[in-house]
């Protein structure tokens, strides 16, 4: 009987040497005449275990990790091909690993189980059920289902997805567009990347349903150029979806049309801002547009456009298949459903954690993360990317939902959590926030363009002990000007991490 062995092929697994492991396994299997099939699956998101090699057994899939190429010979010697767990890297049944078992995976239910570009694998695990249902419904019925789910935009702004779709449906136009924002630039985030690398058909299905819902026949995925693996896998999946009739002018014989294309960004963080992204898609400098008009009314090429984050669109197949009410039965308050959090930075067990809203940051970092990678005490946590506040220990019991975070002056953003141990210099982190804005500001508005440069200078003076009190006052004033006077969130939120350092870690700024 053929033994099925899984070696992941997402960016992190590859970055930790998965290709060499797969090649070595294949070679040893060949040398021993073992009947082995090596499948390149997506990642489970248990990144500290990558490359996580899995072997199919009668009891389920057994994991071994992290496997380095040097470990392969001893694994094979110990009976890997027979599913033996007699090796120090053996982890037992993968589904029983607490980090995975204690999650509520709706969006990432298939991640790491399947070969990401296999349509058969996708279909075997509920794939395209949502599209099949959507093809039986009219536009308003689809949107009502999404509204019932309570889904809010997962890119960071948390705007209700159903209402955005309704606006586009109600806007009369010959041509409408679905644009997927896959410019996942926040440090500490990789959930979008995982969707595209580990379960790309889910995104294709979600975008197609969105197209049916609002009457859009063209979709674009605006993907950052920093994600070469996602680019390759997403394009391969789109090609296969076209060939199988899941994309194109006659979706599954329904007579309905949806075309999809990946467009690459070019290393500009600001293009994650939706109006800047649209400018970039149109072939222009990524300058932020003033709102209104909203992109839902005047979007890509001046037409009504849905701009949604990858995770928002990826939630749609589940909602259509299992029902909006089922999705809404997860979560708390006005934050319904699940939020894929990403645990990163100085963390022992980093990776993707999909949970219903409401767990606390501390549970995430301690129960799932197991503390810091360095073993030193945890000191500060940045949640929500480079524009998110640094949280001190007193705020770690904040529940993970949009409103609770806003109440302590923080943001959940796209769900990235970056942990820092006690060797961090928070003054340096505050300076970096301003420096990042000088590099990435689109330059359209003065508070952001000039304010960030002045911010770096003032922080340098404070750190050098020059007129400290007066310069701290100036910095506070500058932050306020940027927050109130900037055109978009880039300049408007860059001060958040700076202000959090001034408030919670002032000793670092003046040492």
């Amino acid at each position, binding site marked *: 009987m053929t033994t099925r062995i899984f070696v992941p092929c997402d960016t992190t697994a590859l*970055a930790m040497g998965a290709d060499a492991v797969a090649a070595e396994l294949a070679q040893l299997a060949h040398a021993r005449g073992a009947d082995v099939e090596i499948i390149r699956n997506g990642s489970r998101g248990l990144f500290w275990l990558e490359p996580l090699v899995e072997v199919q057994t009668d009891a389920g899939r057994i994991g071994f990790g992290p496997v380095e190429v040097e470990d392969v010979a001893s694994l094979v010697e110990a009976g890997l091909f027979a599913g033996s767990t007699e090796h120090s890297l053996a982890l037992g049944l993968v589904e029983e690993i607490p980090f995975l078992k204690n999650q509520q995976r709706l969006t990432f239910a298939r991640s790491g189980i399947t070969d990401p570009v296999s349509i058969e694998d996708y279909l075997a695990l509920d794939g395209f059920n949502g599209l099949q249902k959507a093809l039986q419904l009219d536009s308003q019925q689809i949107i009502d289902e999404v509204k019932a789910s309570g889904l809010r935009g997962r890119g960071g702004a948390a705007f209700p997805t159903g209402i955005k779709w309704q606006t586009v449906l109600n806007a009369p136009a010959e041509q409408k567009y679905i644009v997927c924002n896959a410019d996942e630039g926040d440090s500490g*985030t990789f959930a979008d990347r995982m969707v595209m690398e580990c379960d790309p058909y889910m995104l294709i299905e979600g975008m197609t349903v969105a197209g049916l819902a609002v009457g859009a026949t063209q979709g674009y995925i605006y993907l950052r150029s920093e994600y070469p693996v996602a680019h390759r896998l997403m394009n391969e999946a789109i090609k296969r979806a076209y060939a199988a009739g899941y994309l194109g002018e006659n979706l599954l014989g329904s007579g309905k049309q949806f075309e999809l294309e990946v467009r*690459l960004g070019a290393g500009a963080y600001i293009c994650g801002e939706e109006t800047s992204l649209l400018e970039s898609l149109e072939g222009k400098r990524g300058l932020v547009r003033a709102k209104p008009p909203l992109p839902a009314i005047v979007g890509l090429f001046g037409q009504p456009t849905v701009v949604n984050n990858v995770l928002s669109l990826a939630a749609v197949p589940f909602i259509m298949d299992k029902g909006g009410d089922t999705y809404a039965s997860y979560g708390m308050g006005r934050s319904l459903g699940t939020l894929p959090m990403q645990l990163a930075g100085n963390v022992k067990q980093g990776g993707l954690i999909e949970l219903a809203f409401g767990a606390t940051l501390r549970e995430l970092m301690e129960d799932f993360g197991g503390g810091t990678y360095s073993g030193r005490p945890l000191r500060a946590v940045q949640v929500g990317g480079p524009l998110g506040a640094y949280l001190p220990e007193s705020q770690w019991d904040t529940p993970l939902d949009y409103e609770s975070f806003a109440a302590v002056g923080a943001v959940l953003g796209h769900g990235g959590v970056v942990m820092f141990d006690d060797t961090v210099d928070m003054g340096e982190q505050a300076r970096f926030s301003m420096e990042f804005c000088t590099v990435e500001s689109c330059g359209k508005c003065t508070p952001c363009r000039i304010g960030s440069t002045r911010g770096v200078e003032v922080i340098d003076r404070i750190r050098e002990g020059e007129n400290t009190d007066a310069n701290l006052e100036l910095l506070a004033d500058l932050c306020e000007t940027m927050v109130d006077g900037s055109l978009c969130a880039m300049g408007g939120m860059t001060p958040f991490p700076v202000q959090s350092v001034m408030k919670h870690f002032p000793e670092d700024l003046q040492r």
Partner: protein
Amino acid sequence: MSGLPQWTPELIQAEIDALKHKPGALLPILHAIQDKFGYVPPEAVPQIGDALHQTRAEIHGVISFYHHFRTAAPGTHTLQICRAEACQSMGSRALEAHAKASLDIDYHGTTADREITLEPVYCLGNCACAPSVRIGDEIHGRVTPQKLDRLVSRLTTRALELK
């Protein structure tokens, strides 16, 4: 730059003609040219402008806006070091200092033997196994200064074998 063809106006025009019909064609065209020749030669600007009915200033404005596009030939290999927060928390500041010192160049610079161009990057999405670097289309995680030295020496060794 080794491995990539030298550009000619005809070759540039072929890239433009293959994509100019697309809505919002400029970024796809610039990517195609840079992927093929390693950079976007300044001489390509008027050609692109003609094809898209835009001014040279508009094309130049777009090229200069995006960090990804370059207008001069890079070294044989491009090494990007992630400067973003998750990598900072795992020692990327020391890693970038080590890279600059050992290669004897700053960011955007190319080594004297034209083997390696050093670039900053803000997040490669490998944040749970930081710090990260990218060489060509390969991403590497948990990169210590020692591991970086090994990666770099592998690159330069490989290049010598080709000669």
